[in-house]
């Protein structure tokens, strides 16, 4: 499935300034793998011990995914890696 990934500003050094990337992926894990293949070092930025890094959340079409890298992506969508946020 085809997705548009928005690269956070802090990781655009790896993409040479590219802000949006098109990838084929069935899960968020596939997205990270596809990004890392194209921009080596991206997986290390986004993941740790096989999971999304603490403090990073992934939004799929504006909704925070609950399954991390295992989140399935059954329809074409827009993917953002954003800071996880706390509330009071």
């Amino acid at each position, binding site marked *: 499935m085809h997705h548009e990934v928005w690269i956070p500003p802090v990781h655009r050094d790896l993409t040479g300034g590219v802000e949006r990337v098109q990838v084929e992926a069935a899960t968020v894990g596939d997205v990270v793998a596809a990004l890392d293949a194209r921009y080596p070092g991206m997986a290390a930025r986004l993941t740790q011990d096989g999971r999304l890094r603490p403090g990073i959340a992934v*939004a799929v079409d504006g*909704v925070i995914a609950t399954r991390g890298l295992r989140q399935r992506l059954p329809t074409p969508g827009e993917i953002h890696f954003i800071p996880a946020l706390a*509330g009071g």
Partner: protein
Amino acid sequence: MTTPASPYKVIGSRPLRPDGVDKVTGRAVYGADVRLPGMLYGKVLRSPHAHARIVAIDVSAALALRGVRAVVTAQDMPAIGDKIADLGESSVNLRYTSNNLLAHDKVLYYGHAVAAVAAENIHIAEEALALIEVEYEVLPHVLDGKAAMAPDAPILLDDLRTNELGKRGDCPTNVAEHFRHQRGDLAQGFAEADVIVERTFHTATVHQGYIEPQNATALWNEDDQVLVWCSTQGAFSVQEQLAELLQIPLSRVTVTPTEIGGGFGGKINIYLEPLAALLSRKAGHRPVKLVMTRAEVLAATGPTSGSHIRVKMGARRDGVITAAEAELIYEAGAYPGSPVGAGSGVIFAPYRLNNVQVDGYDVVVNRPKAAAYRAPGGTNAVFAAETVVDELAEKLGIDPIEFRLRNAVREGDRRVDGPEYKRIGFIETLEAARNHPHYTAPLTGKHRGRGVAAGFWFNWGGKSSATATVNADGTVNLIEGSTDIGGSRASIAMQLAETLGIPYEDIRPQVVGTASVGYNDVTGGSRTTFGTGWAVYEVGQKLLEEMRVRAADYWDAPVEAVSVANGVFTHNGDAMTFRELASKLDVPVTASASVHPQSYGPGFGVHIVDVEVDVETGKVSILRYTAAQDVGKAIHPSYVEGQLQGGAAQGIGWALNEEYVYDDQGRLLNASLLDYRMPTALDLPMIDTVLVEVHNPGHPYGVRGVGEVPIVPPAAAIANAIYRAIGVRMTELPMSPARIIAAMEMSRSGQG
């Protein structure tokens, strides 16, 4: 104008809360009320220094005191490596948490815990503290975030390296993180602007100010089961943190939450629970109770970050914002983890921006580790941004609400961090504020002014579980695990009653601990009425389906031939109410549900405030206050109004009076509610509320979180009102009498 009939029977009504009588009669059991056979009393020894190396600790004299049963120091804590624990809403490095509970090699702030004592009574415990000898090597300290970023600043954590825009630095530092949100072309955006405003702001450290101090009672049993009773926003979060910090299996920790006297985010992190548990084990498996004094609460828990914020915004003559830039420096306290991430998301959230950049810095300083506080980081950020927005509107000669309307976000616009908004109600809220009589009411008299400001909060979903059982008399026991801070027993029970089609009074809610219900995330992030409400909606659906099966069995009919609506089961002309069917059940009916909904809708608020400034003393009086907010569907309107009023009251305190005051040695000078001045009823007018009900399509009943938005706009709204009263832009919180006088003098001398 006619109001459409509500589709609901229970939702939208204003019933009494189930816990009300116990609370107003003093019978509700809070943590300090817990008493167990053989219980010991504990006290904590705290650092008198802001920054010092611990050379030696001698507890022998304390242990020798008659009646002392145990003393613990960091030596009793298991060694914890770097591990990030997900607390549901936020994450913490457990090594830092362990060091915060009991200082290991260094104390990092005045009030940092160093040792704890358990004794037969509190007086012996206090006496024992004085017998503990701690040898310190005092180190230079730094209290201010900007000062802590200087190259020659004292370093708090020797191993800390900056996560600089995704890359780890290689030098010791106090800057834990620098991140950035960026979109569009900032230079081009400012080039298109006809007016540009840039200002810098400073906000003081403030505390959540919950009335009930932290407390914990723990029993480390002979079979290594650890039982804990405490005041917390999340029993499961306490359980997880305890298991990690004490290095014991999760299954050996049982946490029972007592009633809670306020939290506002400050009762998510733990402080006393591991100390009580370790003392219990060391004291021969006797239960140990620890209760903080108010001075300890202020010196060693909570607060939220002080901050330095720079905001620059530009707009065209037609009132369209063309560019926005911000830099936020938040003081995290002694360990990394300020709410600068959230503040950076909140700061420009109300506005449609094509050219925007936000830089955030998380900086450690010699103050207590910051904890969440109601819309963490939002009030600071919006104080800065909404002051600049107000000034832009003024310079362009556009009404401040009209200016906001011209730039307001709507569905499909993007947040500063990228994702698109779904259905939101900011425009409806702005229009509600503009149409409120307050906005156009005459305001006469000298040194009086009216200000407005907008605010935002993300809200949250989180994980919730609940169980319900049908009783023979037709009532339903509801077992939930969400701490009830603001009336959620009622708002959750109402949603179950609505789902079942039975009266609210027939639901008997109970909040239970980790051994008695499925997992629940903390009550925080304005998630409980949304998330746990969703869980009981699913519980209700399951109960109805099972009751339908039972009705079909009773009537000897196919299930699909039985209908249920409004709490009445029908089949072929026969009818039974929920209550009647309950009395005929041969086998009990119970249902449970666990959910993790993510379709929470964010909320926006717009506040209007009238102030009067006493130009002799600098005192600001609030004359009139109105808070409008998109609240989604208001399940219990009185409690929603209460959230708006409570948030505004806390925001007013933050705006005008509250701040931590330290001496030049870094010692906290105002650790009491006499000197840390929170607003009282005498300081506040009636706070009028306007509930703008833009339903959240991502919830069965349209719920949005409501509790955090209302603390976000007050400081900015009051600053804007002060400007109109005396012609001075305030750029520092709190806007206390001394600062008002100083700002007026600066303005008169042409420096302001």
